[in-house]
């Protein structure tokens, strides 16, 4: 009796398994790498309607973040400044610069400037700015060195694991409240960040939600 299956079919199951494993591994690796906020979000740098440079304002001129983002200490949101805030200075300075035409138009027509959103919290997570900045979490921890950016980009991943990294080890990130908006702050004297942070955690009873889902999801 002749063989029903040809000889090459002996290897067929192994080949199929190999292919499936490769394919599965490839898909997993692809998803793991490409669908990760690390890849999806970091570096996102859309063009804004006004070529506003944080590097000039916050870096060169050393303006405090809170001059424009004025409610960051009281509200859940760090507000985008109104046109009025821009015009506080720019009615005097650079009053005719073509770069500011959009702002002047907005001031005259009453139509707001539509800034492109860069940092976006997922809708099921409730992030609260004021509780972070009032407890010694600096702007730089989440937004990067904005004072060195000409055009702001997404510097950190803002994934849940990234959030929890700090919630679990706040001592690695905390600084005195007065230095929160000082993006170039370095630990002073001979103390390390961890020593300063640990002291603050102890003094202020810093206890961010780690296992309490409702801390962020509600």
């Amino acid at each position, binding site marked *: 009796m002749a063989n029903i299956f040809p000889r090459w079919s002996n290897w067929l199951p192994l080949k199929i398994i190999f292919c499936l494993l490769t394919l599965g591994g490839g898909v997993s690796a692809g998803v793991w790498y490409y669908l990760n906020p690390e890849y999806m979000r970091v570096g996102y740098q859309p063009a804004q309607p006004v070529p506003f440079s944080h590097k000039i304002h916050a870096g060169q001129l050393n303006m405090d973040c809170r001059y424009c983002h004025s409610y960051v200490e009281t509200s859940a949101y760090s*507000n985008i400044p109104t046109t009025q805030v821009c015009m506080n200075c720019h009615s005097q300075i650079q009053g005719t610069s073509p770069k500011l035409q959009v702002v002047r138009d907005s001031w005259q027509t*009453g139509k707001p400037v539509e800034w*492109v959103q860069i940092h976006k919290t997922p809708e099921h997570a*409730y992030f609260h700015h004021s509780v972070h900045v009032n407890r010694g979490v600096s702007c730089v921890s989440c937004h990067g060195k904005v004072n060195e950016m000409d055009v702001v980009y997404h510097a950190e991943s803002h994934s849940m694991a990234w959030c929890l990294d700090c919630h679990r080890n706040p001592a690695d990130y905390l600084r005195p409240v007065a230095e929160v908006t000082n993006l170039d702050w370095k630990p002073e004297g001979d103390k390390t960040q961890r020593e300063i942070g640990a002291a603050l955690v102890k003094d202020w*009873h810093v206890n961010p939600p780690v*296992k309490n889902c409702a*801390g962020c999801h509600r």
Partner: protein
Amino acid sequence: MSKRVFQHPAEAQTGKRYWRSLGQLQDTTEFRSWLHREFPQGASEVEGNEVSRRGFLQFMGASVALAGLSLSACRRPMKYLVPFTKGVEWSVPGKALFFTSAMPSRTGAMPLVVTTFDGRPTKVEGNPMHPVNKGATDIWAQSSVLDLYDPQRSQSVLSSGKKSDLAAFHAELAALLKSAGDGADLAFLTDGAVSPTAERLRHLILAKYPKAVWASYEPNGHELENAAVAAAFGPDLEAVPRLDRADIVLTVDRDILGVEGEIASVRGFAAKRKVDGPKSKMNRLYVVENRYTLTGGMSDHRLRLPASRAGAFLKALATELAKLSGDAGLASLASSFKAPETKFKDKWVEETAADLWAHKGGALVLAGRRQPVAVQALAFAINAALGAVGKTLELRKSATAPTVGIAALAETLKKGQTNALFILGANPVFNAPADIRWSEAQAAAKNVIHLGMEVNETAAKSHWHVPAAHYLEQWDDARASDGSYMVVQPVILPLYNGVSVNELLAKIAGLEADPMDLVRDTFLASSPKKGDITADWVDTLKSGFRKGSAPKPVAATLQTASVAKALAEAPVLTGADKDFELVFITDSKVDDGRYANNGWLQELPDPVTKLTWDNAALISLAAAKKLGVHTGDVLKLTVGDKSLEIAALILPGHADASISVAVGYGRTEVGSLGRNVGVDVFPLLTSTESRFRVGVTAVKTGRKYALAVTQEHGALEGRGADLTRQATVAEWTEKADDKTFFKKMGIDAHAPENFSLYAHPPLDDIHAWGMTVDLNSCIGCAACMTACQAENNIPIVGKEQVINGREMHWMRTDRYFASEGGDVDEPEMVSQPLMCQQCENAPCETVCPVNATVHSEDGLNVMAYNRCIGTRYCANNCPFKVRRFNFFDYNERSITSLYRWNLITEKGMADSLQMQKNPNVTVRMRGVMEKCTFCVQRIQEAKITAKVHASDSQGQTAQPRVPADAFTSACAQVCPTDAITFGDIRNPESKISKLKDDQRGYRLLEYLNTENRVWYLARIRNPNPKMPDAARAGSASKGGHGHSEKHESAQTPTGGHA
């Protein structure tokens, strides 16, 4: 040691039993099948008739393929951040802003504080500074936000049904007024909520057009009561019951704690019901009524009696009181009243009279507003004899000048002389009494101008319709039920260019004033101070009302002669013995039909019947047997030459010879939610002297109708007996020192001590959230359910889904009847709000395969929606059945298109409805489990506030802690009787830390060792020991599941459902 079996033993068949429905009492197969499923039959099946399972898979395949072809979804969507151009005063993005205001109503406006986010009102709360409500509200105030955003509100001026604009209307108005002369051809019809400014403008208009007719109409209004007050005490007076001063209250056909009372009465009653211990003084409530109401549920003694016999009861009572007091005047009044011969329950009248007389000066008798003038006048005469006037019953000058009734207006109109009829807010085409034939009268007017928030039946028959502004969109003023002056502030610009009543009246009066100035002028005119009132005005806006503006009560004496006249002239209302009486009841939700398009109200189960999305003919079991019908069988009701067909609903405790039907349903010209919901019973209403009719015949039609009743939903298998606990004052006094008296009732009396096999993670946060519900003051009004719906973005699901048991309310108010030996005629009623019990050992958490529901350190059983995959194991394992599942995308789809295939269905929420949503609560999607969170958004906000302020200084600080009672949950905040208390049980200064250790405190299903964070405080009834039925009242300690009895089977291996 015998094996522990955590099964609940079968309920005792003797003694007192608690039951939700007749189905449960009789243990029908339908009820069994409800119990055995986590969700009821069909709830977990796709039974849409449009797409079969096979078709569904085909479509799915196709749509996946299509999605693969177009990769457009892969691009990151560009979103914009749009700041204001100029900063807005007070506005901080992300923070709520609060304004005082008031919701106008015919029974006195509700003082409010409105929560707004970025300029859109999302929620209203009571004004905590106002003495009338002290921060509490009711279901209508809570639901009014949804009315504001109703996408089906009237949005444009209509001229003969065609779209027009305001300019055209103003031109027409000018032409009409030009030819008005002395106003003989002008007529006005308003509803019952007339503001002081509108009243002022009315006088200006009448000065200009002295012959104009000014009428007002409220189908559920006070006309009969006002006439009775006029007969008893003189004209232009209003009667104000002071339940906060009454020790003994008798209500006769008056739902004073429900739809026929004001929030002040409810609060006053509850204040007299708060008890610390058995020695606390408590009021006593006698209720005579034809159907179970919330008032009946709170009663210590209840007599079921047809509404048409209320007069006979009051006559008997007056006679008895006259005997006790020797008051010849009262005796002659009583004897002059020709009431039908009626026999009352043994000694009921005698003992009630004796108790009232014994508490002379602290007693109060209230008759129903639907009763004939003579009957209500007789009740006032009894009050006068009891010395109640000026004490428990105050009289006050009416704030508005008298108006013409709708019947007289109809007569005027029918003469055909009226050139312009202005209808402001009222909807007479739908709800005027049938016998005045309003539609004919309205047609006789040459021009009819209707101002209203919806294009309703009246608008459809008017020449002009002008969209009205919602109260949150307009400047206005109002009087609270204590008569104090309040300002209604706008919190948003009119969404659809609505016009306020004041603006229209000012236009007619020839004033060109800003709407705010109209109100300010009224404020100035009524100001006690003269000159500059700016400071007063600002202070009034801040506090919401003018302090000290509540009018003082006036002294009055009974005018015996006019009462005698009214009594002598009163016709005898009796029908044939085989006939029924038909009682028109004010609906507990849609009122007279004005809230018919409000989904929250339509879906709210009626507090007593638990009926949603319908009205029904309420009858007793005996009447149902006589007629041969069950719940859901359609009856034909005939009276005179009019008849209608409506489904019957058997309600325990209903009078046998009586049928009650709520008015306000069966609207035809309204938004899609309210259209043709229920049956319109206004065609049977007449404008004669009472709001019930006798001589009604009822026959079975043989037709069936599906009623969406939620009373069996959420029943806990075999565990119903001891969820609500109560005792009488006498029983409590006996057990005053027994700390475990209430804790060891029912099954808890013989359950073994709890112990746990597991080590539980510590709940070591500085806070521990908990709640207490005082069943002694909870009246079951369901305001908490509506507040929860508004706060937590809970969608409505529609009638069909409610029938399937898929309603989404996070909390429910369970209504139990309790009786000895299954007596369905005269059971007691208890309401019990039930929300997630936040068990420390939560059974739902252990079964979740994806850790979507876990515990937080502060003791919350939290739900992470984005983790939930919808296995529904948690709901299955929840002993309290408080978890709700999104079977459909209720937020994204209209309730009529839930079953339609995805690609051909319009999805998304109306823009206006999105504006209502609380921005701090996730809007849940299909396939996600949800439940009460103890308002975790408020908890987080409070914690964050504490933390933000903790580190103001450098160096060591105390651990941030939320101050005691700094905030509360939505249900506790709204509660008119302060029955719900929420707070931090670990903070010794908080109210709850004391309340939870009250002797009356107990937790549900304690023997399951779930360690609930919700404590209930048992209800105490205060029966009169001399009454024949006193022994039946209140006690939960009698019968088969007594406190002291041993029940061995609970611990045997075969225990449970033997």
